[in-house]
């Protein structure tokens, strides 16, 4: 299980971030290193301004999906950000902002939640990914 899991997060919806956080925590529990590369709306969701706020859901969720997700949160489901914090505490999880997306969204490093470890370009991401799987969410 030494091969890394490499997630490219693009979507900034609560459900996709939650799914990514679950994959990350599972890998961390198995001792698999995880590299996360944040692009566009996923990066926006990792800003201090948004990380703890209620985010939109994927379009297919609809009203019923919204109600189901809200009910799970109310019942104490751990948020995606908290799941990632615990995954980082448990294993090797490196979260990097895409430098192009930082530029497009006019973000500075201090705008980002401390979950984000730094900023890099796509080449650095591929170098760290090595022969591990790359998943786009």
């Amino acid at each position, binding site marked *: *299980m030494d091969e890394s899991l490499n997630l490219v997060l693009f979507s900034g919806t609560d459900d996709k971030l939650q799914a990514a956080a*679950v994959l990350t*925590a*599972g890998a*961390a*529990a*198995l*001792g698999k290193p995880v590299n996360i590369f944040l692009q566009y709306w996923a990066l926006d969701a990792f800003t201090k301004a948004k990380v703890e706020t209620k985010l939109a859901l994927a379009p297919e969720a609809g009203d019923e999906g919204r109600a189901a997700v809200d009910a*799970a949160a109310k019942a*104490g*489901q*751990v948020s995606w950000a908290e*799941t990632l914090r*615990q*995954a980082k*505490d*448990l*294993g090797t999880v490196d979260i990097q902002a895409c430098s192009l997306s930082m530029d497009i969204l006019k973000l500075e490093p201090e705008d980002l939640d401390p979950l984000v470890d730094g900023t890099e370009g796509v080449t650095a991401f591929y170098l760290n990914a090595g022969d591990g799987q790359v998943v786009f969410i």
Partner: protein
Amino acid sequence: MATVSVDLTVDARGLNCPMPIVRTAQAVKGLASGQTVEVIATDPGSVKDFSAWAKTTGNEIVEQTADGGEFHFVLRKK
């Protein structure tokens, strides 16, 4: 309840996937080799998840029971 002696108990009742495994892995990190942890979970995925986790990490499931929607595991650290 566990019939072997346990060094630590993780109450993961009410927690959804992957939190039972995450909490357990965190607890196991603090144990010495050969020590045991008991886990109580209600997540129906936990039976397959703990089996996969034990197989991958080399930690051993020494006891496993299910009772009324609760799953008990005793795991021994590698």
